[in-house]
């Protein structure tokens, strides 16, 4: 059953990668059996093939790209070639709406109460200004978690993303002890996920479904990125706090604004967290200057 499904997935993945270049139009999702039923309309469209050649296809054969099946985990370990992903978090825009967190929790089916994205109320010292600091996994270039993993369950890809293979993780939690950013969480009990999702094979790129007794964390949503989209936190944020992009292309975007990464970091004095530890994070922060919102800690008000 499982192998059959996998081979079908791989078939879909290879055929659809070519199909992904085709523009979307109405109709049913692509399935091999249906192709024979379609009658040519005679109206041809020109398209650029994946090999860079211009080809002509009858319009009737054009199908919308269905939801991309996740890449096999062997491919997910390698990463997307020619990319080096980074995130920029603009602290001057954050007012702790936490839409990033709820979108992330929802899309990854995270256990209630646990969060991969945390939004910290920070204040360096008594006299300095408080601000909100959202944290994701830092996707370090010298990841302490990867160094200590005894079974290569957590790994660093060529595109800079650090992922977890929950089918391999033995649950020793050494990575959690090693991570100075406290970005890893553990599935202490059987995850509360609908059966339909829980029964899916685990994908390193979607980090779904989470498994009992293994570690989970922010994954930079490589499944979205592979489809040309943005991580869920980036698109969910109403204030455009999160920018995501490729350092090699030197551009980052929050969906509505796009900046040159290097200029943004230079102009706004971007920095990374705990630089002194030598972990070389892929997440950059812009300092909370000229803020869009005053700092209001409703959590503290609730407590008081």
């Amino acid at each position, binding site marked *: 059953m499982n192998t059959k499904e996998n081979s079908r997935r791989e078939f879909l993945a290879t055929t659809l990668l070519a199909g992904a270049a085709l523009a979307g139009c109405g109709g049913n999702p692509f399935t091999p059996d249906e192709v024979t039923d379609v009658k040519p309309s005679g109206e041809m469209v020109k398209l650029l093939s994946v090999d860079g050649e211009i080809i002509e296809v009858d319009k009737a054969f054009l199908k919308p790209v269905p939801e991309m099946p996740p890449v096999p985990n062997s491919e997910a370990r390698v990463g997307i070639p020619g990319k080096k992903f980074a995130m920029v978090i603009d602290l001057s825009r954050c007012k702790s709406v936490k839409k990033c967190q709820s979108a992330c929790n929802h899309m990854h089916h995270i256990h209630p109460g646990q*969060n991969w994205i945390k939004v910290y109320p920070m204040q360096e010292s008594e006299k300095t200004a408080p601000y909100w600091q959202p944290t994701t996994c830092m996707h370090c270039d010298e990841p302490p978690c990867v160094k200590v993993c*005894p079974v290569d369950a957590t790994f660093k890809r060529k595109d800079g993303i650090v992922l977890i293979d929950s089918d391999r993780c033995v*649950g020793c939690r050494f990575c959690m002890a090693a991570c100075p950013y*406290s970005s890893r969480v553990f*599935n*202490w*009990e059987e995850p509360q996920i609908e059966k339909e999702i829980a029964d899916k094979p685990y994908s390193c790129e979607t980090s779904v479904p989470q498994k009992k007794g293994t570690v989970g964390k922010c994954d930079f949503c490589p499944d979205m990125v592979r489809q040309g989209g943005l991580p869920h936190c980036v698109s969910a944020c109403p204030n455009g706090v999160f920018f995501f992009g490729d350092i090699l292309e030197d551009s980052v975007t929050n969906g509505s604004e796009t900046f040159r990464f290097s200029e943004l970091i230079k102009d706004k004095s971007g920095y990374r967290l705990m630089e002194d530890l030598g972990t070389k994070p892929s997440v950059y922060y812009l300092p909370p200057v000229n803020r869009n919102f005053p700092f209001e800690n409703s959590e503290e008000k609730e407590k008081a």
Partner: protein
Amino acid sequence: MEKLAENKIIEDLLPQKFGKQGQIWVISLLAVCALGFYAYCRQLYYGLEVTALRDYASWGIYISNFVFFVAISLVGSLITAVLRLTDVHWSTPLTRIAEIIAVSAISFAGLIIIVDMGRPDRFYNLFTHGRLQSPIIWDVIVITTYLFISLLLLYFPLLPDLKIMIGYKERNGKYLQKLYEFLGSFWKNKPEQFKITDKAINILSVTIIPVAFAIHTVTSWLFATTYRPGWDSTNFGAYFISGAFLVGAGGVLIAMYVFRTHYKLEKYITDDHFNKMGKIVVLLALVYLYFNINEFLVPAFKMKKAEEEHLMGLFTGEFSPIFWFAISASMLVPILILVTKKGRTPKWAFFAGILVVVGSWFKRFLIVTPTLLHPFLPMHDVPKNYMHYFPTWEEWAIAGGSLAGALLVITFFARIFPIIPIHETIIETESHEKA
């Protein structure tokens, strides 16, 4: 005359059946083990959810118990190897006690680490996907090595004793006789055989010292290779090893007293043994105290921001009662007791040994958990119960069960084999009389 003495020695040292006390002891240990086993079944079924471990305090008493077991097992190398190689003879009656403590503790160290795993069903991944740069893999390698060397160091000196025991067929009963014959029927007391085992024991004694240092140094590196305040220390390897020798020696004091009084071995484990072991414990406690001063006073002098929360939590905060208890019980009070001549009498030494071992167990807890509860970024966006750690009954039961299991192994060993080496004792008395 000499012949008589030999018979008397054998008579005194042959393993004895459990008396009423022994039976009660074994049954209560079995009960604790059974409770621990039941708790572990619950943990297997529900997951680590049944523990109080959460994302911040992700290691708790399982891991501190693991460190404790590894620590106490180092005593095997101290008594058998270090004292043997330095030509100290008074410790001969204690070698087997030390070695069985080592074997039993290191076996349970391995078990308890599996208990801590979220996916024990994937244990084989450590072999099929093991990566050599992870300190966990180093630990797996050195602990396995240590276990096998310790087993051999237990087995080789046992061979002449097996020969003696095989001679007491009726006393042994069918099953034990079979076991003794299986283990030692090839041993004929030939000079060549002695030559080979002596050589083997010497080689093993030399090799076990670096391996013993390795097991506990690597165990310390599970912590010291991370960035966290309280663990990020270059002092950690030496700090762990000195503490390990201390708790092991404390364990030997306890075992000496229990075996001596229970089996009436006053002639073999003499007052002088307590006197000498007591002095060793004082020395080891002083060394460990020295490393503790380094470990706490130097960062406390600077009070770096990240260290401050952790240190204040230990000195005056949440963990201060355990901290000061552990420091006094494992070091200060035993030193005060054992520096006096009266303190080195069996009863007092036994009491000091208990203090050392209990204090050291809590000391291991303080090494593991408080650090995790003082992360670099403040604890936030987690349920309230994630911010504290107090073990659940399942954790206590499992940890207690593992300790009871280790004691059971030692108890059964003493029931089946002579806990004091018979052959070596005979040789020692002979050479003593000649001198």
